């Protein structure tokens, strides 16, 4: 595990390029910084993307087509393409009247989905004739802000977690740009906007959703400190596990049965889903800090007593790598089926690379 601190500002979101030599982060303001480097060494800022006027809420970097999509609280989204070493923005007409909250490229990168506070999801695709990005809206039956999105590997289904305590799977099939999808365990009739799963009892705002590598199960974390999994192969039955930790904010599948989630407890946890009713906590993915209790000289003793009114060598930091809530987890190495490394960013301005042993 390695930690790199990008400063003192919280990192709202991050995204990696294809070979993981560049990272795009936003330090809780309206600018996206792109850093070049490699893990374990220094990261050098090479670009600053400054088109947004509101706080950036989502960044996603498409690995194959090398395009970045950003969305912000100014109700806009931009698609950035690299031309002659400079990132050029293209405005996307998302037609929302509230802030955008999250954005994700689809697996084939021909469209992306944008969640917003306007209680709708905007699925955007590129129209070649007019050379601009168009959007189609999914409105019903969303009743509140869309907090998180994830695409199914088949490029058609979209999972959305929202603040109306529901977790849903929609069809985002756009007939103008792609062929009809085949049937999936979630359903076979898939016109645009069709609801294939609607789970009502998530218990709290659904902060993050994630499809498994095969797309047959969907995991989500909600604000009532619970994690839930819906299984398409078992008739879309839902298994929920309530935890004794603070609410989790981000969830990621590291292989078909293992799930990693992190949130306000500042450290990632591993869960395992082996079938209906078998969702359980495995372990904390963190090495506790080695407390170095060296020999304290008498001078140290008195100095501590004078400064801190105690002779104990107290460390006020948390016993884990991140010192504040983790806001986002991202796959780093290994591919969806077997994630070897994943990264996390948090409110402490640090980015940590975690290794996962299967």
């Amino acid at each position: 595990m390695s930690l790199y601190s990008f400063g003192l500002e919280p990192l709202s979101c991050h995204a990696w390029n294809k070979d993981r030599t560049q990272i795009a982060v936003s330090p809780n303001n309206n600018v996206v910084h792109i850093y070049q480097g490699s893990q374990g060494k220094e990261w050098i800022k090479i670009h600053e993307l400054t088109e947004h006027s509101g706080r950036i809420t989502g960044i996603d970097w498409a690995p194959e087509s090398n395009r970045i999509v950003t969305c912000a609280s100014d109700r806009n989204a931009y698609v950035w393409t690299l031309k002659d070493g400079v990132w050029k923005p293209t405005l996307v007409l998302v037609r929302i009247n509230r802030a955008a909250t999250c954005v994700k490229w689809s697996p084939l990168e021909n469209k992306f989905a944008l969640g917003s506070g306007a209680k709708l999801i905007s699925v955007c695709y590129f129209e070649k004739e007019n050379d601009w990005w168009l959007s189609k809206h999914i409105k019903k039956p969303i009743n509140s802000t869309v907090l998180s999105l994830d695409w199914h590997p088949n490029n058609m289904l979209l999972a959305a977690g929202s603040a109306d305590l529901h977790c849903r799977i929609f069809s985002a099939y756009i007939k103008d740009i792609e062929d009809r999808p085949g049937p999936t365990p979630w359903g076979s009739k898939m016109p645009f906007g069709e609801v294939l799963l609607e789970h009502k009892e998530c218990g709290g705002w659904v902060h993050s959703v994630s499809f498994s590598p095969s797309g047959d199960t969907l995991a989500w974390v909600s604000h009532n400190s619970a994690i839930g999994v819906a299984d398409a192969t078992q008739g879309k039955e839902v298994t929920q596990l309530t935890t004794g930790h603070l609410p989790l904010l981000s969830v990621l599948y590291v292989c078909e049965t293992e799930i990693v989630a992190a949130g306000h407890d500042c450290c990632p946890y591993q869960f395992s889903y082996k079938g209906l009713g078998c969702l359980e906590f495995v372990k904390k993915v963190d090495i506790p800090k080695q407390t170095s209790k060296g020999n304290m000289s008498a001078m140290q003793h008195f100095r501590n007593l004078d400064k801190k009114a105690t002779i104990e060598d107290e460390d006020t930091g948390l016993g884990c790598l991140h010192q504040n809530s983790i806001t986002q987890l991202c796959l780093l190495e290994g591919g969806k089926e077997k994630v070897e490394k994943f990264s996390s960013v948090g409110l402490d301005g640090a980015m940590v690379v975690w290794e996962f042993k299967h």
Partner: protein
Amino acid sequence: MAKNTLSSRFRKVDIDEFDENQFVDDHDEAADQQGPDAAEADNLIRQGDMMAALHVALRNPPINSKNPAIKERAQTVVLRVLTSFRSSDIESAVKSLDKNGVDLLMKYIYRGFEKPTDNSSAILLQWHEKAFAVGGLGSIVRVMTARKTV
């Protein structure tokens, strides 16, 4: 000149009623959620079987009910059971509950905190400490986020 001669009745209108986009919770009214059986709980307390009294009190929580009287009644039954426990027995009682039971107990504890009586707060704090040791911060978060309160 100082008195407003126009009607100010418009100030008492609840405009949220007329908002079409207002968020409405899914209500499912369950008629059989009458709250725990007060008589049975009382019997068990008198007999001294505290564990059974606790389990009886935590049965049938009026979670889906919108009737405040039922909720009040349930709260009084549970509070009576909780206060008649001896401090040394609290820990084993909490350990005998399952996960959902601990969450439900936390809900009742916080409900009890809302209206403190003479000695209820002290005993509730002891219950809180033991329930927290088992349920963790998650059980407290679930009390805050639950839309259907006990």
